[in-house]
């Protein structure tokens, strides 16, 4: 037996079964003589066993096709090399800039109708939803004031949709500047910190349009128009999970 003192690290290594047999025996002897420490060590061992058993089923699950390694290797082989992509991109860029120069002026079409509204909602989400300090200008606690002010600015009666049944509560709202005039934005969040944005404004183009899914980057949702007002609901959830919420917004807007 060595005379090396037993350390905390030894105790953990004992729990993790990482000690050489000789040292293990020394720790075991120490624990026999020190029941208080032995209790702590056995608590840690139990904890380790519990964690291992709790997580073991995950490793037993069949692998989904995305995690099939042969497939991942295969799809890499089929991909053209990066250099060729770079060459192709350069060619496209030069053609693009030449074409762009020739066509300048005539090509400056900004989106209108639903496409513009969808873009405005996505932009608003990207700018305001990550804001921790002041995501909204007027809080929901001043809801009546907010709705009155937005209705005045839009020259339209506006109502903040109530999405509590879907698990989202109104945080508040703000006025948004768009190239098609002022728009009203309402923001919602749920208990997990997921946020939603509803944007609405009067429409010159697409005064009535069916509900259409939209998606750009990580932001997706729906856009539609009813009786001259356009609406867009966007968030970071899967687009289909937002559909019932969009339906609810549409239903409530029709009763204004």
């Amino acid at each position, binding site marked *: 037996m060595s005379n090396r003192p037993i350390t905390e690290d030894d105790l953990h290594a004992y729990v993790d079964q990482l000690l050489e047999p000789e040292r293990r025996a020394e720790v075991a002897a120490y624990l026999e003589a020190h029941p208080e420490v032995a209790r702590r060590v056995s608590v840690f061992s139990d904890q380790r066993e519990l964690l291992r058993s*709790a997580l073991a*089923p995950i*490793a037993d699950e069949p692998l989904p096709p995305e995690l099939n*390694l042969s497939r991942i290797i295969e799809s890499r082989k089929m991909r053209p090399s990066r250099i060729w992509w770079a060459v192709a991109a350069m060619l496209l860029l030069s053609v693009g800039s030449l074409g762009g120069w020739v066509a300048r002026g005539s090509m400056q079409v900004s989106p209108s109708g639903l496409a513009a509204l969808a873009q405005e909602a996505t932009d608003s989400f990207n700018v305001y939803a990550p804001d921790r300090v002041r995501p909204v200008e007027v809080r929901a606690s001043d809801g009546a004031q907010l709705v009155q002010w937005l209705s005045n600015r839009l020259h339209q009666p506006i109502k903040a949709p109530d999405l509590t049944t879907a698990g989202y509560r109104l945080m508040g709202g703000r006025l948004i500047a768009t190239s098609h005039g002022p728009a009203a934005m309402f923001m919602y969040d749920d208990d997990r910190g997921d946020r939603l944005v509803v944007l609405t404004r009067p429409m010159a183009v697409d005064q009535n349009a069916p509900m259409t899914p939209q998606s750009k980057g990580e932001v997706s949702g729906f856009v539609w128009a009813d009786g001259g007002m356009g609406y867009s609901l966007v968030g970071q959830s899967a687009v289909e999970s937002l559909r019932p919420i969009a339906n609810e917004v549409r239903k409530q807007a029709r009763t204004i």
Partner: protein
Amino acid sequence: MNDMLLQVEPLIPALRRYARALLRNPASADDLVQDCLERAVSRWDQRREGNTRSWLFTILHNLAVNQFRQAAARGRHVTIDETNEADFGQDAVQEQKLMYRDVLNKLAKLPEDQRAVLLLVAVEDLSYADAAKVLNIPIGTVMSRLSRARERLQQEIEGTTDDPSKNVVKLRSLK
């Protein structure tokens, strides 16, 4: 290529387990593992001689850390409570399932760096030196985090943490 398949494929279930225990969301955990495998395939020839297992865990862990950072920067919560019963312990009996879920919920309360050490060492069987490599920290830090993680988890299990929100609940339930 064949060599890679032989060495990497058997480790995929463990990578999945680590990712899911860290992220608590099965879908984003699998996305992370997929990302990790794609990187592993493309960098196979650049890996240094040594342990394929700790090399893969290093890639995966770095991806997870990036994801945590992005989530923090976006001001969104990392999904922690989205597990449902079906996610863990499919075949276990009900009582055991509850116990498992309970310990995983408690594990989720640990700071991310303590959780990572505990999972790598106690569940994934990495040596202390390999865990230090994966986490890019000195081995002494591995030991101190491991010790803190075990103490903290035990406090959670015994319900002796000084969590003010818990006291509030207790006071309310007395009414």
